[in-house]
């Protein structure tokens, strides 16, 4: 019996090792990050394709203003970064990375818009913990996940996918990456796409 117990312990240990997903957690958030474990990589199917017009939307931002996608038409390229939820791993370090890359977005005349399905107070506390962000953060909370749904990236549990959309000045989708939710999209790929814009 003792042998069997040892075996069970070994199996549990193996499973734990297999389930863990490395994501280099920042000490910044200490014990504040809720770890949902390994999730189904993608849990939605988008109807959008590169070359299609990006669906317009208008959402409240952290600063209090509403941000409408079409207001940038003819003026700026737009990068939408959907992240699944505040206070979760991967998400909590994706935006701080973009936070030190403002000059790269500016160089390509691109505006970054962060979107989650969380409400404004949650986004306020979370982004404050990141030390503030230079780009607008939009709340797709009410009606819940409506914009995420419009982009085909709303997951069955009400969070969104980890997804990037590059939209050019004409409002056309030039790049999209609905990424494995458990992994951070490498910044390289996004920058390569920005370089392709005029």
């Amino acid at each position: 019996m003792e042998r069997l117990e040892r075996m069970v312990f070994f199996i549990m240990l193996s499973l734990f090792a297999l389930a863990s997903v490395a994501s280099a957690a920042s000490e910044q958030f200490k014990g504040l990050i809720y770890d949902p474990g390994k999730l189904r990589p993608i849990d939605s199917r988008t109807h959008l394709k590169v070359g299609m017009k990006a669906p317009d939307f208008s959402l409240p931002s952290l600063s209090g203003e509403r941000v409408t996608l079409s207001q940038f038409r003819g003026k700026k390229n737009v990068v939408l970064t959907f992240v699944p939820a505040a206070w979760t791993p991967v998400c909590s370090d994706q935006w701080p990375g973009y936070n030190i890359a403002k000059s790269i977005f500016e160089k390509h005349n691109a505006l970054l818009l962060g979107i989650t399905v969380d409400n404004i107070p949650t986004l306020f506390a979370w982004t404050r913990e990141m030390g503030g962000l230079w780009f607008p953060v939009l709340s797709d909370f009410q009606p819940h996940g409506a914009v995420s749904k419009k982009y085909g990236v709303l997951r069955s549990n009400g969070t969104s996918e980890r997804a990037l959309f590059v939209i050019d000045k004409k409002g056309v989708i030039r790049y999209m990456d609905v990424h494995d939710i458990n992994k951070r999209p490498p910044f390289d790929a996004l920058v390569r796409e920005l370089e392709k814009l005029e």
Partner: protein
Amino acid sequence: MNEGTKILIAAVLAVFIGIRAGGSGNASEKTPLKGERFPDIRLAVPEKEAEKSYLGLSGKGTFALSDVKADVLIIEIFSMYCPYCQKEAPLVNQLFETIGKAEDVKNRIKVIGIGAGNTPFEVDVFRTQYAVPFPLFDDQSYDVYKRIGEVRTPYFFVLKLHPDRSNTIVYSKVGTIGDPAQFLAFVRDEAGLK
């Protein structure tokens, strides 16, 4: 069912679930602590001549930490994506500069950074943003990160490098180094550099 059968079933189940989980089996190791030995990792030899010469390296390919020409090696585990590392960057730069001004140890204490899960491009973004003057390496595949127990970042290791190519960790902690001058004094003490 006898015990042997139970064990066999359990083992088969473990393998089956393991495959489904898609795990590579590359499990994380324990974080090496003060007094222990830092794992034998290999990093890519820097392309920049100045960085090669700083570390006392030559050629191409990879190098082991024991190849670094120093008595003490300070390793920062960081990430471009880590806000704390971003705040810490100016302090670590100051530490590097403080070491550079200390004639007696400037060739004996070297500093490197390893970007956990960062691509070379991402490491470059960090390097450029903070004008990091010491060599930074990418750990895109989390290989090093897993060897050191997936620490939170920033994490600092200070290694005493021995002539027999072994090393002893004299500092292994998460979080800020605090005042760079005081940290250098501490490193001198701990590593016995007088």
